[in-house]
Structure formats: C-alpha cells, structure tokens
C-alpha cells in the first residue's frame, strides 16, 4: 500500500525565519514520483515540484529547497527567509508509475507566517 505522512499539522513562524515541512512516504514500488503542492486560502492547488524516484539530487528554487532521501523515505521542503505570502497549506503527494498516476496526498501542513 502507498501512504504519505505529514506529521506536522500546523507550523507558525515569524517572517524571515527558515522553516522545514516534513514528508514521509511509503511504497514498495521502485518507480514513483513525489510532489509538493501549495494550497493558498483561495483554495487552488499550485504545483511546486516533482521528483522521480531515481533522482535524489536536492533542488533549490529561489527561497525553496527540497531534500529527497530514499534511505529514510523522506522528501522534505524548506522555505528560507519565510514571507507572509508563504502562508498556506502545503501538501506532499506520491504517484506510482503504471498505476493511473493518481496522486496520493498527505494530510497537509498549515504554515502561518506572521509579520
């Protein structure tokens, strides 16, 4: 069975702090994809990043960075120098190749950034 766990329900930080959102996944498949989506108060899910299971290279995009570690089945997301506009619910998701490509989401982490 496949599963995504986001143990942090809610995180509050003050602007300019760094914050890391944790994601742990479970699958027995060797080929899979991992995603992060942002859901601002408006409700629309916004794609942030996709990683395939064969690419463990970490990625940085501006203030965002992702750490993929197969050894611990984790795909953590760090926001550096957080801003109020980063306030949203963040979802980690998993899809299995050759299995419909449906996304299996975690329960999300609500990030609140205070000025």
């Amino acid at each position: 069975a496949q599963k995504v766990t986001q143990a942090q329900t809610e995180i509050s930080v003050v602007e300019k702090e760094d914050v890391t959102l944790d994601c742990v996944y479970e699958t027995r498949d060797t080929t899979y994809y991992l995603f992060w989506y942002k859901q601002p108060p408006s409700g629309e899910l916004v794609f942030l990043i996709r990683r395939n299971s064969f690419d463990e290279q970490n990625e940085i995009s501006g203030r965002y960075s992702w750490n993929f570690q197969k050894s611990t089945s984790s795909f953590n997301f760090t926001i550096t120098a957080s801003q109020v506009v980063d306030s949203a619910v963040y979802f980690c998701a998993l899809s299995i190749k050759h299995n419909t490509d449906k996304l299996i989401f975690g329960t999300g982490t609500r990030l609140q950034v205070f000025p």
Partner: protein
Amino acid sequence: GAGVSQSPRYKVAKRGQDVALRCDPISGHVSLFWYQQALGQGPEFLTYFQNEAQLDKSGLPSDRFFAERPEGSVSTLKIQRTQQEDSAVYLCASSFIRGGDEQFFGPGTRLTVL
C-alpha cells in the same frame, strides 16, 4: 483560458437532490482526474480518464457517484441522491500525458448538502 476551470464554484443542495459538477481541462491534456477534499484533509482520488476512457474509478465512494468525459475534453461528475457526507470540495485536475506529469488543478467546486 489557460487553466483548468470548474463550475459551479459553489453548490448548495438539499439532501436527496442530484448534482452535476463540470470540469474544463487544459486544452490538449489527455489525462483528467477528479478528487474529493474534505475539510482539513488532503485531496482523495475519485476517478481517472485518459481521453474519453474511464480507466480507474476505484475511488468513487458509492454507486451514487458517476463521472463521464464523452468527447475526451470536458468532464462531468454527477452525484445522485446527495447525502450530508458528500459535502466537500471537488477538485478536477488535468495533465498532458501519463508518466508522472504534474497535474494542474482547477479551483474546485464546494458542495454543501443540507
């Protein structure tokens, strides 16, 4: 339009009524997905289309839920005899091809069943 659109954005139904939710995917996208998002939860998969073929409906919670995509573009999710537990946001997503492509989500339809 450039993105996935859904209508209506909000729907209030009395228990027992039938509802139809519409999704317009991004032009040219082969894959279309429906998800259900309960309050405070992550989206949960309902069904998947590749063009007009419904290849996976394993997530539909009961036979009151029905989805179609007859011409391989617009899709409709129909819920018959709505129940209070059907209250949720229904999200539609599309992607260009299979193989782990990113899915682009619409704004969702918030369904409230009284």
